[in-house]
């Protein structure tokens, strides 16, 4: 039988999420950025511009600009708090873990590496909102691809 009962809204709109939505961390322009990606969700108009300063395969600094719903903006805000100082490999792992959590993987949802991002686990029960939560990480993946592509070009 299809379960049509409501997933509790409280699992979606936790205080931590609303706090990041109201007071986003690392919001602004990063003047010495090495890469910038604009990611849009064309169906709803949400957008995030993610700026990274990458040095020696490490994210030295990160900022974002954005406009969108509480889920997309809180998610990218939390993401930036975890990225500073991390290696690109670690950032890629975080993105993969987070994406798994969004698709309902309960083990990923317990991964302490995800930190505050675990408060977004409830989004998995709202299928139409999963894209919102992933927008920042989509921008991150694209930024890393761009960075690595440029490195290869430079080496090649």
């Amino acid at each position: 039988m299809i379960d049509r009962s409501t997933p509790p809204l409280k699992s979606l709109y936790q205080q931590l999420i609303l706090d990041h939505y109201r007071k986003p961390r690392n919001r602004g322009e990063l003047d010495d950025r090495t890469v910038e990606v604009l990611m849009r969700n064309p169906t709803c108009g949400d957008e995030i511009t993610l700026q990274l300063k990458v040095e020696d395969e490490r994210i030295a600094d990160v900022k974002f600009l954005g406009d969108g719903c509480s889920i997309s903006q809180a998610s990218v805000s939390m993401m930036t708090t975890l990225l500073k100082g991390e290696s690109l490999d670690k950032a890629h792992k975080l993105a993969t873990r987070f994406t798994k959590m969004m698709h309902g993987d309960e083990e990923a949802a317990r991964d302490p590496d995800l930190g505050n991002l675990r408060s977004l686990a409830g989004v998995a029960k709202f299928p139409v909102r999963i894209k919102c939560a992933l927008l920042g990480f989509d921008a991150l993946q694209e930024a890393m691809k761009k960075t690595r592509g440029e490195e290869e070009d430079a080496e090649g």
Partner: protein
Amino acid sequence: MPSVSTPDALDPSAVRGDFPILDQQVHGHPLAYLDNAATSQTPTPVLEAIQSYYRNDNANVHRGIHELSRRSTDAYEGARMKVARWIGAEDAGEVVWTRGTTEAINLVASAWGAANLEEGDEILLTDMEHHSNLVPWQLVAARTGARLRYLELDDEGRLRLEDLPGILAGGRVRIGAVGHVSNALGTINPVREIARQLHAAGALLLVDGAQGAPHAPVDVAELGADFYAFSGHKMCGPTGIGVLWGRRELLEAMPPYQGGGEMISEVQRDYSTWAELPHKFEAGTPNIAGAVAMGAAVDYLDGVGPERILVHEQGLVRQALEGLQAMPGVRVFGPRDPEGRAGVVPFTMEGTHPHDIATILDSQGVAIRAGHHCAQLVMKRYGVSATARASFYLYNTADDVDRLLDGLESVREIFG
């Protein structure tokens, strides 16, 4: 749309029984369906028409001499006549079946545009158009070298009609493409006046009637339209069927839009001749069941009385506007006077994104739309990236509007 002299009020509870989909619980609450500008629900007589067509009469049209083909052709052409009557067209040959409004507009932009537009010509659009009445014109402009001109909007979401004479004075506008009713603002546009000015300047007018035809009586001749496009699924019909109405001499002069069976008269190795109107524009096996169902939808709406639908919607709009305007931090878009708008109420709430509003309302069984509503120029004009939008139809009740307003109180509690 003509103002109507006090018709008997529409009682939504009397028609709700015709819409089985409305009788359901969503997330533990009765469904309040307020997303009618996106698509409307389908009454039992239309559902039965689809089933009856496939159960009893299904055959290809205009091809066979067997009984079923005769019946399906009669049903298909009968539906065309019903739709012609619905929009006040005397000649059913001017009614072309399409996949929907989008295809109808693409047909004109492509077939009329290719034959009539050249470099330096101008196409008049407005900042409130749905993307389906913008992008086809951008495509034909790129192909022909024609330029796009825009009528802008005032602060209340009405067209700045005072700018029109200046745009037309250049003498280069060949066609205007204007929405009858804005899906993003609810504004009912002064189509007749726009038609008058365009015609005086030697230009044509296409009216995007996707939000017009479903909600009030339409008379294409009285409107002064040269083309009128609309969709079945926004007026109690199914998806995948729509209509282009065009003046006969314009359609006759236009080249075909697509080639294939059904649209030809004679085919030789290196040339073909075209079928008579409207078949010239209906290549391939059409959406026969869709057309038949759209005919049934027109019968249904005729039975309810199109003039009563707009009045009913405006009552709901008035109730919604009063409730919304009393809420702090709520901004409503579109004309303040309910008489100037159809049943579309877009709004934003300070500190809460429209998607979050829509999710919270959905958890209470209230279905609204949130986003840019395929009208990004409107969002840009009013400095927002998205709005929440409630839109009404004949089966919506005052209780539905109360549920919307109550839901917004709980949005405020969460986002407070």
